[in-house]
C-alpha cells in the first residue's frame, strides 16, 4: 500500500505522521513517501510565528473548532514531555485588543485562563478599549517541522524533493493513495477558485523583554490587518498584513513601514529593537478547510485522493485535528480495499 503525501509543511508532515502512527502495524505493506518542492526552513509553516490561535469567529464551522481543540489538547499533552523543546512547543500568554466590545470567541474554553482585560491593563494600549487575556501555546515551525521530519525518517518514511505536476503522475508510478497537502499551490494540481492567497509579511526583531503576544483587531480591515507582536524563543515577530488575492512573494517596503510604525505605536519599547530579518508568505485561504476524499477514475482503477488544504492563517492551530481526520479518511479507504480484496464468502 503506497501512500504519497504532497507537501512538507505542517499539514503534510503531521498528516503523514498521524497515518503512519495509526496504521503501520495494521498494514505491514504501508509505504509512505513525502513529495515537496519546498522543505523546512523554506515552507509557509516556517515563516509563521507559530501561535496557536484560531480566527475570532468560526462562522458556525463547528468541525474546525473541534479540530482546533483537538490540536490544542494534543499539544498541551506534550508540554511536559522531554520532546517539547525540540518540537518548539511552549506556553505563552497574551492579549487580544479591540476598539469595541466583541463576543467571546469559540476558543475561549479551549485556551487556559481566558478573561477580559481590566481597565488598568487597557491603559497600556491607548486606542483600545476592550480585550482578552489568555494562556495559549507556541509551536514554532522551524523547530516543529524538523522534529516531524526526524520522527518520519525514523519510521522509514522517504522524502522526495520534487514538484509534483499532477495526481496522475503519482498514480502511474503505482501510488495507491495521495494526500494532497499542497497548501497554497493546490490550485496547480486541481483548480480551486475558493483557494486564494492571504499574503502576509513580517519583521523579525530582537526584543527579548517582550514576554506576551499582543494581537490587535480592526474589525473593519479584517483579520491580521492590524498590528501584532508575537515573541518566539529566538526572536519576536511583528506583523499585521493580510492581503487577499495578492500572490507577491517579495517583501514590500510599504508593508514594512506599516508594520514597523503600527507595532512601535502599540509598544513604544520596540523602537529600540534590532531588526534581524523580514519574510513574506501566502496563507492558503479558503472559506473552509478542504478535508475530504476524492475518488479519481484512471482506466479500470479507482485512485483515492485525500485533500487536506486551505488552512489560511490557522494551519498550526488546526493541524493535528486535521491530520487525525485525514487519517480517519485513510482508514476507511484501507477498510474498503480490504473488503474488495477478500469479498464475503458464500452463505451456507
Amino acid at each position: 500500500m503506497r501512500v504519497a503525501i504532497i507537501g512538507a509543511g505542517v499539514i503534510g508532515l503531521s498528516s503523514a505522521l498521524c497515518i503512519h502512527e495509526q496504521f503501520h502495524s495494521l498494514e505491514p505493506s504501508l509505504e509512505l513517501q513525502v513529495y515537496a518542492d519546498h522543505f523546512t526552513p523554506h515552507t509557509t509553516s516556517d515563516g509563521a510565528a507559530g501561535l496557536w490561535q484560531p480566527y475570532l469567529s468560526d462562522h458556525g464551522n463547528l468541525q474546525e473548532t473541534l479540530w482546533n481543540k483537538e490540536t490544542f489538547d494534543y499539544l498541551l499533552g506534550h508540554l511536559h514531555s522531554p520532546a517539547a523543546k525540540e518540537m518548539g512547543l511552549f506556553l505563552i500568554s497574551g492579549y487580544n485588543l479591540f476598539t469595541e466590545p466583541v463576543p467571546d470567541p469559540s476558543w475561549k474554553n479551549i485556551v487556559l485562563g481566558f478573561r477580559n482585560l481590566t481597565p488598568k491593563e487597557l491603559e497600556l494600549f491607548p486606542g483600545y478599549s476592550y480585550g482578552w487575556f489568555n494562556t495559549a501555546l507556541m509551536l514554532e515551525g522551524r523547530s516543529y517541522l524538523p522534529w516531524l521530519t526526524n520522527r518520519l525518517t525514523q519510521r522509514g518514511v522517504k522524502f522526495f524533493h520534487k514538484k509534483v505536476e499532477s495526481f496522475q503522475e503519482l498514480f502511474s508510478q503505482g501510488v495507491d493513495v495521495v494526500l494532497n497537502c499542497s497548501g497554497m499551490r493546490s490550485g496547480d494540481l486541481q483548480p480551486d477558485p475558493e483557494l486564494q492567497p492571504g499574503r502576509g509579511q513580517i519583521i523579525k526583531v530582537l526584543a527579548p523583554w517582550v514576554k506576551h503576544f499582543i494581537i490587535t483587531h480592526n474589525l473593519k480591515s479584517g483579520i491580521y490587518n492590524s498590528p501584532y507582536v508575537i515573541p518566539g524563543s529566538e526572536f519576536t515577530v511583528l506583523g499585521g498584513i493580510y492581503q487577499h488575492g495578492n500572490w507577491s512573494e517579495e517583501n514590500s517596503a510599504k508593508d514594512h513601514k506599516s508594520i514597523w510604525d503600527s507595532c512601535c505605536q502599540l509598544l513604544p519599547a520596540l523602537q529600540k529593537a534590532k531588526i534581524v530579518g523580514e519574510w513574506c508568505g501566502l496563507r492558503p485561504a479558503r472559506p473552509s478547510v478542504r478535508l475530504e476524499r476524492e475518488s479519481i477514475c484512471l482506466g479500470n482503477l479507482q485512485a483515492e485522493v485525500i485533500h487536506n488544504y486551505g488552512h489560511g492563517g490557522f494551519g498550526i492551530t488546526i493541524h493535528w485535528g486535521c491530520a487525525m481526520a485525514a487519517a480517519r479518511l485513510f482508514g476507511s479507504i484501507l477498510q474498503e480495499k480490504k473488503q474488495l480484496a477478500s469479498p464475503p464468502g458464500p452463505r451456507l
Partner: protein
Amino acid sequence: MASPKVAVVGAGVIGLSTALCITETCPSCSVTVLSEQFSPNTTSDVAAGMLIPHTYPDTPIHRQKQWFKETFTYLFAISNSAEASEAGIHLVSGWQVFKSTPKEELPFWSDIVLGFRPMSKAELQKFPQHQFGQAFMTLKCDCPPYLLWLEKRLKAAGTQMYTRKVADLWELHSEYDIVVNCTGMGAQQLVGDKQLFPVRGQVLKVHAPWVKQFIRDGDGLTYIYPGIHKVTLGGTREKGSWSLSPDAYTTKDIFDRCCSLEPSLQGAQDIKVKVGLRPSRQCVRVQREILSQGGVKLPVVHNYGHGAGGFSVHRGTAKEAAHLVEECISALQGSSSRAKL
C-alpha cells in the same frame, strides 16, 4: 544652606533609587554616591527583581502597600515607554502555586498587580502537586540594566559616584552635611544594627528563552522568573548564613525543584550560580537620626533592611527617605539661621 551636600552610602537598588529621589525632590542638593560595590557586584544584581512583595512583620500593612503601589506605578510607566529595554523593566505574567490552600487567599498586593485571580482547574493541571494557585501579571527589574539605568540618570543629574568603603559614618561629616545610609547588609557593622540579619539566597541564572511566564511556589523557596536574557531559578532562604560561596548540592536541589515545576528547564543552557545575602529585618528601617559626637552633629537618614522585598518597595522607601532628607535640610537651615542671630 545654598547647596546641601548629601552622601548616599550604598549603590544597590536602594542606594541608587534613593539618590535619584533626592535629586528629584531637592534639585539644589549636591548628591554623591559612595559604595564599596557597584553593579554588577551588588546584592541587587543577584536578585531576580520581581515585584512580588515580601511581608514585613513589624511594618504596618498600609505603609507596605503604599510603598509597593508607588514602586509599581513608577515602573509600570517606564515599562510602557521607549526606555523600557534600556532600564530592564518588563511585564511578566504567571502563576503562584500552593501545595495546600493558604490561609490568606488574597494578599495585600492583589489589587495592585494586574489581572489577579485564582487559577482555574485546567491551569492547575500543569501542577499536579499543587492544590491552589493565583494567576497575575507583575513587573520585573532586570539587573544590571536597571542599576546601570539609575546610574545614568544620576550622572545626568550631576551626581558623582565613587568606589569607597565607608567604615564609619563619621568619616563623612567634614565633607557632607547629610548622610543617607543605604548599606543593606553592611548596616550591621556600619551602624551596629543587631536586628539586621542575612538570609542567604542561592540562585541559578540560565538560558531558557522559551520560558515566558513566571512560576512561584507559595512557600517562596522555589521560583522561576524569566528575565530579558536569562531565567532566574531559585532558591534558598538560609537565615543567619553569611556564606557567599555557591553550594553544589544546593545548585542541584534548586534545579531539580524548578524542573518539577517546569520540566522543559531540563534543556536549559549556560547555567550560572549566584549568591546574595538578603538584608533582613522585622521592619524596614526608614528613619531619621542625628548622630552626635563631641559637640558635632551629623544628620543621618537610614533606608535599609528590605530583606526579600527590596525591588518591590524600593521607589516607595526611596521617596520616604528623600522626604526625611528634606526634613534634615530644613532642620539644618533652621539651626543655621538661629546661629546667625
